[in-house]
């Protein structure tokens, strides 16, 4: 029983943390361009300094 008193708040806290991170990601525009993110990985890094 006393184990639950520690574990349940931890479980809930982690869940809330995930939720908060999702909210942040959405506000930050992380989901704005999902297709673009998939494409960008294919772009070769060029020397931008030229």
């Amino acid at each position, binding site marked *: *029983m006393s184990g639950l008193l520690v574990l349940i708040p931890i479980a809930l806290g982690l*869940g809330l943390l995930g939720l908060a991170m999702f909210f942040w990601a*959405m506000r930050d525009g992380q989901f704005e361009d999902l297709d*673009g993110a998939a494409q960008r990985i294919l772009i070769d890094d060029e020397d931008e300094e030229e």
Partner: protein
Amino acid sequence: MTAPFRQQDLEDSALVDTRLTVPGMRCAGCIAKIERGLAEIEGIDAARVNFSAKRVAVRHSPRLDQGDLVEALRHLGFEAQALAENPLGSNDKESRALLRALAVAGFGMMNIMLLSVSVWSGAGGVTRDLFHWLSAIIALPVVAYSGRTFFASAWMALRYGRTNMDVPISIGVLLATGLSVYETFAGEGHAYFDSAVMLLFFLLAGRALDATMRTKTRAGIGALLSKMGKSARVLGPDGGTSEIKAENLQPGMVMVVASGDALAADGVIEKGRGSLDNSMLTGESDPEPVETGSVVHAGAIALSGPMEVRVTAASSDTVIAEIARLMDEAGQSRSRYTRIADRASRLYAPAVHSLALLAFLGWMLAGAGWYQSLVIAIAVLIITCPCAMGLAVPAAQVVTSGALIKRGLLVKDGSALERLAEVDIAIFDKTGTLTLGEPQADLSPLGEKQRQVALALAQTSRHPLSRSLADALKSEGTRPAQVEDIAEVEGQGLAGTWQGTPVSLGRPDEETTGMASLLRIGPEETIITFADGLRADAKEALAKLAEQGILSRILSGDRQGAVEAVAKALDVPATALAKPQDKLALLEDLRSKGQKVLMVGDGINDGPALAAAHASIAPGTASDVSQQAADAVFTGKALMPVALAISHARRCMAIVRQNFGLAVVYNICAVPLALAAIVTPLIAAIAMSGSSLIVVGNSLRLARVKE
């Protein structure tokens, strides 16, 4: 990389942002090319591509204007248009709100399930009560937050004495929560928090998918909308020109119209001569030669110029505005269309609610106490809550719409798919719909040398004929010759020097019929003719429609001869010289005979017919009005997406009906358990998630279908 320019910009003034739509980007290479290419240009600080929306956001110094940016992108090989706000409005907010609600419901569902599993597997006494209390603490705010969409919509429906899918959903969720709170206080019986929140999660998943699909297709359509005639260059008193928005134009102003420009207002030509492309306005495929004194209408596109046009009627008085008014009236009938989910809920809601009432009365008569009877009635409502029903429609439609996007068709919403599945006759506009709507150069009279010279000249001009010629030559693999000193004389054409010989590309001297250009290399003269060709797969597409029992016919505003030629080539009946009013009248006539018409058209003159038809599709090259009036937009040069839209929509509706069938079967199995008072929260949870997953799985079959 742009440090030196940035320094200079700071002295000039602050940087400004411009957003451009670039429909042509297709791959990672395009992203890199655009971002790096633009960043190298003096005055541009940074460019960021949004690939999903096919947009570029450019941060640049105010010394550059939109025209410079469009030109810069054209040099990189991309057609671009500066973007005003999306005229279709943004659904972004709605889908974001739904995603947030979904995330909260998901969080709540998982945590409550964690506690519920312990209760199901035998936790008793204080532990069980503690877990119920914890569940209640999580569930109440989650239901309040995530359920708002459903409660608000159900409340709206009830207030107007109607019912929709959200009414039984809301009642089910609220009763399940209410009963569970009571049981938690009482410290006995079952708590259904997990069912209530799981129900919200699955339903929100359906809604969020639906909203994402709409946002995605609308962004795609927004990217296609051209900036046709939204502004005009107006001649000032000092002889300079300034850019004025269409709605601010006043009668009496003088617009300067160059080749390629769309007219923003009706007017009379004051100075200059040229030819106008009226195909958007009337369906007429041949250009109309105009000169001083000719009356011109907004929506026409200048093929040659320059011309000065005195405005006689602006914004609300133009021919276009009259068509817009017709469209508003024509669109009324479509807004009365009831979607299949709402039709189903009209049968469903009264059925389950009376079933719950009967259960209550039955158990009362059988001698159970009112409390036990009430618990059983609520259990019936919870178990019949239309989880699978709520997913039946959106799941199938989202999958279908995704499959259609891959084939070049953007469907605006689910209602459009439902209506597309019902059509039984198709009416096509000719110019720009069955045909490509742009002049195609006939390259056969040109030799290799002439092709190279023609390309060198044509690629430097923005004239529609030059562009079409350059595109045709490039796609043939022609390389441009080394032509020097190329100069463009407005209204005359292009001239230059090639290996010491003067060369030119321009308007033919004599008035040839149709569209043509004259290529001169020294003394040699060649006439290049242009014609508006049929889409390559037009015949196959119409045949595929006929296969599905849909007969096609042509309804065009173009001349009799031009329409007949196309009608003969495609072997379908045709009507020529139809005005927007005539098109509308024919549609009304067909409707009164009980036929459901699919209208496919691109011109401004097709707008009212597109809005009035049972379902409508416009090509991506269509006028803004048509794209907004249409239910779906197809991109590319093929007509086949139109035929595919029908077959996919029908298959989608077949799956939707199967889904409803599955939901009904599920209820037939589950309801007796509820009536017999042997439903536990565990059974409810299994039944609900099981039926939802079956429905989603069935819908996913749509993605695997091949033509």
